C-alpha cells in the first residue's frame, strides 16, 4: 500500500505539475492578449484551456482524497 501510495503521489505530482504549468502559461498569455486588446483564444483554444482546467482540478481533488486520508 505504501509503495502504491508513493507511486500515485509521484505520478500525479509530475503529471499535475505539467498540466498546471500549461494552464498557467495559457492563462498568462490570455491576460497578455487582453492587455494588448487582441482577441482571446478561439474555440479550439478555449477547449484546450477548459480541458487543462478540468484535468488540473481532478488531479488536485484526487490527490486530496487519496493522500489526504492516507489510503
Amino acid at each position: 500500500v505504501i509503495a502504491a501510495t508513493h507511486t500515485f503521489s509521484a505520478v500525479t505530482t509530475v503529471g499535475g505539475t505539467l498540466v498546471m504549468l500549461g494552464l498557467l502559461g495559457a492563462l498568462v498569455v490570455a491576460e497578455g492578449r487582453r492587455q494588448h486588446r487582441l482577441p482571446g483564444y478561439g474555440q479550439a483554444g478555449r477547449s484546450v484551456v477548459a480541458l487543462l482546467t478540468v484535468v488540473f482540478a481532478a488531479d488536485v481533488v484526487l490527490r486530496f482524497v487519496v493522500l489526504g486520508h492516507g489510503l
Partner: protein
Amino acid sequence: MASDTLTRPARGTRPVASRRPVGTIDLIGLVGLGCWAYGLSAIELGHMGSTGLISVLPGVGLIGLVLVVSAFVLQLATDPQDRWRPALYLVVLVVMLDGLPCIVESSGDVPTGYIHVGFIGYILDHGRLLENYDARFSWPGMFAWSALATVTGGRSNALVYLRWTPLALDLAYLLPLRLLLRRCCPNPRTAWMAAAVFVLTNWVQQDYFSPQGFAYVGYLSVLAVLLACTSPRRRPATLDSPVAAADRRSLRRLLAPAPSTVLDLRDPRSRVAVIVLLVVVMGAAVTSHELTPYALVIELAVLAIVGRRVSFTLIAVLVVLSLGYLSFGAENFWANHLSTIFGGVGHVGGSVSSGLVSRTHVSAGHQLVVEGRLVYTAILLGAAAAGALIGRSSGWADWKLVSALAVAPWVLVGLQSYGGEVFIRSLFFSLPFLAILAAEPLVWILERPRIAVGSAVATITVAALVLAASLALIVTRYGNEPFYLTTPTEIAAVRWVDQNAAPGATIAVLNQNLPWRFEDIDRYTFVSYQAKCQGLPGASCLQHVDADYVIMTESETEDAELEGGFSTADVERLVTATLPDAGYRVVLHNADTEVFARSGPSAAATGGGQ
C-alpha cells in the same frame, strides 16, 4: 481649508504641491521627536509591568508623542497637499511607534522569529528543507530567500535580522499603501489620515521576522498596483435598456469576461510587464505563506465583481498557483491529515471560541491588554462603519468598493480557525481598507468645523483622537512585551544548552515564549510542558516527557503568570520543589535563566552560559 480644494485631480495630472519654509508646525514636530528620543533613553525595561511597554514609557516621551501627533494633525488641517511633510511625519510616527522595541530592546522580541531563524539555519547547513518537521516548512519561500540573504551578507545565521525587521517591514508597507490610498481615497487629506490610521491600528504585530510579514508586502503591492493602474470597466451603452438592466443583474452577466479591464498604461509592453511582475509577486506570496494567497484571491474577486477592475483570468492564475502549490509543494503538510485544512470550514463558532474566548482567560493584570485589543478593534470597526455612511452620503464613488474590500477578508473566519489566529489575520488583511473608512470621520470633523465646532476645537479634537489611538497602539501592540522581551542572557543560556546537549536529547520548556530553536533544530526534540501537560507540569508529566534539559527563563515565567493565569507561587514551586524532586539539578544560572538537567556538564564546568 475648504473641502472643495481637496478633490482628487484628474488622472495624469499632478496637484501643485505647496512649498513653505520651516515653520511652527515643523518645530513642534522636531521638538516632539527630540522629547521622544530623550524619553527612550530613560526607559527601564526591568520595571515593566503587566501592561507592557506603556508602563515604562517616561512622561517626557509621552510629551514627545503628543507634540508629533499634534504636528501631523496640524499639517493635515492646514496643508495636506504639502509635497513631503505629511509623508515625513508618517515615517516619524512609524519609527516612534513601530520601531519602539527595536530601539529600546537589544534583541528581536517575538519568540517565533527565533524558530524561523532555526528553519533558515537548517537550509544554510543542509541546503534543503527538513521534511515532516513543521507546517511552516511547507511554505519555505521566505526562509529560502532569507538564507540566501544571510549567505550573501556573510553571516552564519539570521539572528541579526530579528531586531530591526518590524521597523523595516512597517516602512516597506508604507510604499504600496501610499499608492493604494492615493487611488482609493476621495482626497489627499483622507489618504494621509488613512495611512496614519493604518499605522496606529496595526496592533496585530505580524510584522516580525515571519513569512506573513514579508508576504504582506506582496499582498499590498498587488492590490495597490491593480487599484492604481485600472479603472472600472464601463458598461456598453446598449446595456442601459430596461431589458439589459435585468440581464446585468444576472450571474452570467456578473461573471462575464471583461474585455475592457486593461491596465491604464500607454505602452502595451509595460502592461504585459506589470502582469508578469504581478504573477511573480503572487508566486512569491504563494510559496511563502499559507494564508496570504487566499486572502488575495478574495480581494481580487471583490475587485472583479464590485470594482469591475480585474479580469477573472488574473484571479484564475492566482487560484491555480495557490492550489497547485498546496497540492504539490505542501503535500507534507496535509498528507494523512486533510482535516487540518478543511476541518474548520463552516465552523465559525470554533473560530470565535479559539480566537476570542480562549484569549480572555488571562491574569487580571494582563486583562487590560487583552480586552483593550477587543475594544480597540471594535472602535476601529465602528469608525469604519461610520466612515462608510459618511462616504455614501457625501457621494464618494468608491465607498462601496472600499467597504467590500474591508469586509471580504473576514470570510476567512468561516473557513479556518488558523490555530485561533484567524481573527487577527483577517483584521490584518482588511486593515488598509478599514483604515480608509475609519479616517473618514476624522477628516469629516476637520473639514466641517462650521457644522460641528470651531476650527481650532475640531483640530484639537482630531489630535486628541489620534493621540488616544497612539497610546492604544502602545498598550495593545506591546502588551505582550513582558514575555516577548528577549535578553542576551536568555539567548546565551539556550545556546549553551545547544552546545552541550547530546544529539537526540529532549529539551523542555515551560512554554514557547523564549528565544529557542534558532540553532540545530534537527538535533533535538523540543517539548513545551504547558502544551503537553495542559498546565504546569507535575511529577507524572515530568516523568512522561522525560526531558534531558529544562530551560526556565524570565519570559516563560512571565507568560505563565500573565497569559496562563498561574501564580508566582505555582511557578516558584515548580522551580524549587517539583523539578528537584524529579531529579533535576541546576546546571546553569544567569540573570534571566535557569537550566536544569538530570545529567551532563554544568555551566561552571564548561565556562559558558553568560
